[in-house]
């Protein structure tokens, strides 16, 4: 089981500023260990839901850095709303984590 994501969602007006850190090696398939290539292993897709409704999605490649970080801004959010983020990689591994939207300072 991959390590959990770290997700933070902070309200600014009615927009939730979401930042997420995913634990993943994001191997490009071009790096060598000794004289062997490390196989391609990377997150392919990401979705984010606000209270069960998909609000953000992405298809990504191995060009994204190791332990990927993304930030995006979800509209129409309130404090206490649920943000659920899921990723899936090219080996079929997947991970889902969630957080609640916190009021901004």
């Amino acid at each position, binding site marked *: 089981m991959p390590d959990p994501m770290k997700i933070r969602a902070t309200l600014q007006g009615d927009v939730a500023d979401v930042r997420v850190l995913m634990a993943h090696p994001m191997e490009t398939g071009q790096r060598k260990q000794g004289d062997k290539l490390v*196989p391609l292993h990377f997150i392919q897709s990401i979705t984010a839901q606000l209270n069960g409704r998909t609000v953000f999605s992405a*298809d990504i490649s191995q*060009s994204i850095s190791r332990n990927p970080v993304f930030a995006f801004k979800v509209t129409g959010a309130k404090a206490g709303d649920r943000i659920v983020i899921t990723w899936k990689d090219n080996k079929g591994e997947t991970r889902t984590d969630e957080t609640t939207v916190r009021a901004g300072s």
Partner: protein
Amino acid sequence: MLQTRRAVIKASGALGLLAAFGGALLKPGRALAARNQSAFDAKSAVDAMRALGLSNAQDSKDIQIRAPEIAENGAVVPIDITSNIPGTTAISVFIEKNPFPYTGTFDFSQGTMPYVHLRVKMGESSPVRVVAAAGGRYYTAAKEVKVTIGGCGG
């Protein structure tokens, strides 16, 4: 090494077929479309954009790309992208000189502002090209990022 290569080719063949169908049926709204594997496999940004149907994008000053002028560490280059084009539904990112330039597509059409922060790997200095989709049209902008190899002022 040969074994890895074979596995990759096999996987991309199967996905490529899916992408061909998905691409034809679901061109404007990217949401839930099958992964466009031929775009991800393309070795030039031009080919990747063609595979995604973005070839006729017009230059725009309304796409803001915030990235370092000089990135000391090509393994982690932070990029902030904002589209100020009304009705932007998605943006795609291409690192023109990476071995596989197509970095990804981010879909905002269902309840996010046209903004994304991402961190990418860059093999060498390259333009970072962004294509935004808005109202069935495509707009593009690029920003050059220099990568210093070794970090010793080279």
